Each structure stands twice: as structure tokens, then as C-alpha cells.
């Protein structure tokens, strides 16, 4: 027995996961908007070691973004209202993608539009580009044609965007869900029906903070998106709701700071995770997390991470 244990301890556990046909080396991705276009963090970590690299959200045309202040710290969290600043999909392909191509890492482009047509155009452009391995559709953005309510707020619009993008690409399509909708699991079911290969959740929660001395919002945009450890319990419970309702892979996002947090998501049923705000605090967060996961798997004699996913037991901790 002892020699077997030792053997397990010495061999590296399998950590590869399958996200709708896209095989990732490991389940740790960077969250869109928190890792720039990849290059910004290249001096800090070996990008080859990531499960996937998701870039800043791309629109059809370049966007200038919101006036500052754009961010504010809150208890165990932060608000941001970047306003979707990005170089636009074409400049991304011409100026940013060449840097990323040599890396042996799955590159996933996060995209958003104001109309379904825009989403489709961006998807088509990216599908024709070499070196993009998947698309993540951000449906938290306001649908200008439907009175500015987010695509992700209603099952029907979420269905339409997903179907529209799927019809134009062969790349695996992840749909990123917003927590600011009523029943997130309902939206998840709807995008699954529309052909989504996976869902990722959660995007930021709408939040606000005020400078009481000057009686002005801390953000010029008044409200912003809340991220960071503060939202982790909410993200985890939403992932738990969604895994019970869909059969496509679910990617957990929200407030993950360390390996322990990742394990919570995996145990609840997430197939992979995204690390957002944590990279700001520690550029090496993703890799530190990978090491932590590895230690855990070895300590628990789990030889394949897929055997851990969705293994939440009933009952309560015994101490």
C-alpha cells in the first residue's frame, strides 16, 4: 500500500480539461479584461503555462472607454467602469495577435456588440484569423436595438446572440453570463439550447460607491462592475445552480484568489475557472494557483482533476 501511495504522490496528476472540444492543459484561464492582451503580463509569467488566455473584450470598432475615475476599491472588492475600451477586432488581429501566436496556449477572444449583427461580424472576422482558438461572448452589454437592456438579461435575446454567433463560426463558443439577470440558470439553459459549447459565469455585479465629503460617485460613470473576493460566494452559488441545469461545461469566474477558491468551484461542478482581479494583486496568481491545485490533488491522491469536478457531498463538515 505504501509504495502505491508514494507512486501516486510522485506522478503528476492529469489536469487537462475539455471545454466543448477545446482541450486545455489545465483549468486555469485568465478572465477577460483583467489580463490585457496577454503581453502586459508576459514579463511576469510564462504564458505557455496557462490553461487558456482570454483577452480584453473586443468590439467591431475601437472604443475609447469611459472618462476617469474608472475604478474604486470596495470591501474585499473593486468597482470598474472601463467602458469597454479596446483596440477593436481588426487592430487586435493586426497588432496584438502576432505577439500571442508563438505561445503554446489556447487564445480565446472575448467579444461584444450592441446588435446581434455586430456580434456576428466580429465572430466571422476572428474565425478567419489564425491563432484564435475559441470565442467567449460577453452578453452583459446593452442591446441598443432593444432599449439598452443587456442581451444577457433575457433568455430570448441570449438565445439569439448565441445562435447568431454559432452560425458563423466553427470555433468553440463560450457564453459569458451576467449575474445581474433574474434567473441565471434559465439564461444558461437558453444559450445551451442555442448551441453554446460552454458557459462562463459570473461577470461583474452592478455596484456603486460614493464620496460622502463631496457627494459625488467615486466613479465618473456612477455605477460600475463589482469583482474580487467579495463576490465569490455569489458566483459559487450561481455556478452550483447552473451546473444542475445544463450539461455543457461550466466555467467558474468571480473572486477567485487562490487554489482553495478554485477547488470550491471545481468541487461544485465547474470544469474550469477564470482568474480576474487576482492577477492585478499578484501577476503570478494563475501560476501560484496551479501549483496549489497540484499539491491538493497529490495530497488527496486524485490522479485526474476530472475526478474531482462535481464531487460535492451532501452533509456538513465534521471536525
Amino acid at each position, binding site marked *: 500500500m505504501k509504495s502505491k501511495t508514494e507512486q501516486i504522490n510522485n506522478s503528476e496528476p492529469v489536469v487537462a480539461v475539455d471545454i466543448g472540444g477545446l482541450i486545455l492543459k489545465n483549468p486555469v484561464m485568465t478572465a477577460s479584461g483583467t489580463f490585457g492582451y496577454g503581453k502586459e*503580463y508576459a514579463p511576469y509569467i510564462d504564458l505557455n503555462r496557462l490553461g487558456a488566455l482570454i483577452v480584453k473584450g473586443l468590439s467591431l470598432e475601437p472604443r475609447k472607454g469611459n472618462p476617469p475615475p474608472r475604478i474604486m476599491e470596495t470591501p474585499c472588492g473593486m468597482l470598474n467602469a472601463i467602458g469597454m475600451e479596446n483596440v477593436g477586432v481588426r487592430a487586435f488581429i493586426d497588432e496584438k495577435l502576432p505577439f500571442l501566436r508563438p505561445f503554446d496556449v489556447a487564445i480565446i477572444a472575448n467579444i461584444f456588440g450592441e446588435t446581434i449583427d455586430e456580434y456576428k461580424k466580429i465572430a466571422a472576422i476572428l474565425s478567419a484569423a489564425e491563432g484564435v482558438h475559441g470565442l467567449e461572448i460577453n452578453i452583459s452589454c446593452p442591446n441598443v436595438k432593444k432599449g439598452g437592456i443587456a442581451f444577457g438579461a433575457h433568455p430570448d435575446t441570449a438565445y439569439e446572440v448565441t445562435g447568431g454567433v454559432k452560425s458563423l463560426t466553427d470555433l468553440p463558443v463560450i457564453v459569458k453570463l451576467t449575474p445581474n439577470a433574474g434567473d441565471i440558470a434559465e439564461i444558461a439553459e437558453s444559450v445551451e439550447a442555442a448551441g453554446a459549447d460552454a458557459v462562463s459565469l459570473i461577470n461583474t455585479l452592478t455596484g456603486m460607491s460614493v464620496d460622502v465629503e463631496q457627494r459625488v460617485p467615486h466613479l465618473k460613470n456612477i455605477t460600475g462592475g463589482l469583482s474580487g473576493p467579495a463576490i465569490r460566494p455569489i458566483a459559487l452559488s450561481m455556478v452550483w445552480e447552473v451546473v444542475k441545469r445544463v450539461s455543457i461545461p461550466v466555467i467558474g469566474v468571480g473572486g477567485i484568489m487562490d487554489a482553495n477558491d478554485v477547488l470550491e468551484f471545481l468541487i461544485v461542478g465547474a470544469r474550469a475557472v477564470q482568474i480576474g482581479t487576482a492577477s492585478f494583486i499578484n501577476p503570478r496568481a494563475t501560476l501560484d494557483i496551479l501549483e496549489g491545485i497540484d499539491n491538493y490533488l497529490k495530497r488527496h491522491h486524485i490522479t485526474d482533476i476530472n475526478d474531482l469536478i462535481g464531487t460535492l457531498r451532501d452533509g456538513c463538515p465534521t471536525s
Partner: protein
Amino acid sequence: MSDVMSLLVGQIVQNRELVPRYFFLMSVKLPESLATPLPGQFVMVRVRDRRDLLLGRPFSIYAFARDKTAPVIELLYRTTGRGTIALSRLKSGEYLEILGPLGHGFDIFPEMKKIVLLAGGIGVVPLSFLASHYRKLPINDRLRIIAYLGAKSADHIVGMDRLQETCTDVKISTDDGSSGYHGFVTELLADDMESYLHGDSVIYACGPPAMMKRLAKLLGDRPISCQVSVEERMACGVGACLGCAIHVKAVGDKTRYRRACQDGPIFDIREIIWN
């Protein structure tokens, strides 16, 4: 892997109150892998294990020395909110998380004869480091460094001692007249402005937005270059989050945002749109 940058753990050597509950001077010992910082560069500082103080706080580097045992940086800071108050309570021996040096430093002009520094309050920090950097250059002999230092009042003047060591002249202004010139430091500079317009001078400035705006107006298109260090809230410090947007002029009538952290924190004053 030694040239890969990473979050460093620094140990506090000293954390001294300069002006009670207001200005603090901290020196932090860092691992050998710390890259040598340039004047104008900054670090993101976090108190270890404090998840409630989630984001790093940006601080300009006040001084740097690579002593026998390890590199040491000095920070000079003002307590304004939860983060800086938490910093001020730390004792020597405690640990900090430090990311940096980050951003671009000031451009150095070895051909200049007069280096003019305009500091508002805590804005003295990067300028003081810059002055000592200029003093170490071979051109030192013919170099005049003139510092204009503005503060609320006499007891809020900070950084004087170092400036007096490195500068040819240090001129003080206070808002309440309790020391030096009574009024804004930009007015003090305005009086001497003519003498700096002969192509042999450069202005470096750091201070509150109101001071910077006045300075921009004062300079207009007079023939002198001016670099400023700007402040904006930051999350990543490395150019990834786009949180630290600075409004700048772009081609034609257009404007755009640049990142205070990665594209700055040093900018040409004339590039920035002050509002």
C-alpha cells in the same frame, strides 16, 4: 528565471512619522531581484494578507540604495484613507507585497543647465529622487537644480532636507504664508519664468491637479519642455486593467485615454487634457 519580474515581499526597515498623522517615511528592504528603479517610476504596495485592502497602492519611489545586504527603497507618503493609514501602523520587521518598479521614469536631459522642479506637497517625492539622480551624472558640475516647493503651511513642508542637499536653491511657498512666499507655488515659479526660457532649462512637476492645471496654463506654448508625474487610481499597475485612464490629446482634434501606469506616470504636460 531571474529576469522574470514578480511580486516581491519586502521587509520594513523603518516607518517613521514625519508630520504627526500626516506624513510618513518608510524604508523597505527588498530581494536582490528588484530592478534598479529610475526617478519617476513607482511601486504598487500591499499589506500582506489584507484582503479588505484588496488593491495595491501606487507610490513613487523617494530614494533607492543597494546596500551591502539588499536593495532598499524609500517611500514618503501621506495618510489619506484606509490603505495609507494601515501602512502607517506597520512596524519595522513586518512584511509588504511590492510590485515594481513600474512605469516609465522621467526623461533625462544631460544637455540642460537648469533643472527646475515644481513640487506641490507630497509631489516632492519623485522630484527629490530625480534631483539626486541628476547630481550623480557626470554633468553635475555645471548643473543648477532649482526646486520650488509648495505646501499648505509651514508644518506641512516635507522633503526639504534632501532637496537642500541636492539642489542649488530651494524656494518655498505656503498657502497661508506661514513660511516662504505667501501663495501658490506656481506664482513663485512664474516670477522666475523668464530666466528659464533660453533653451537650457527643463521643468519637472508633480502635485495636485489644481497645481498642474495652473502650471499648464502658465507655460502655454512658451519654449520650455515640462514633464509631469500624474496620479490616477490604479488596479494592476502594469497596463492590463485600463483603470488608470488619463485624458490626452490625439491626432487632430481628437482625444484619447492613455494609461497612467504603463504609458506614464510621466507625461509631457502639454499632452494632457486638464479638466
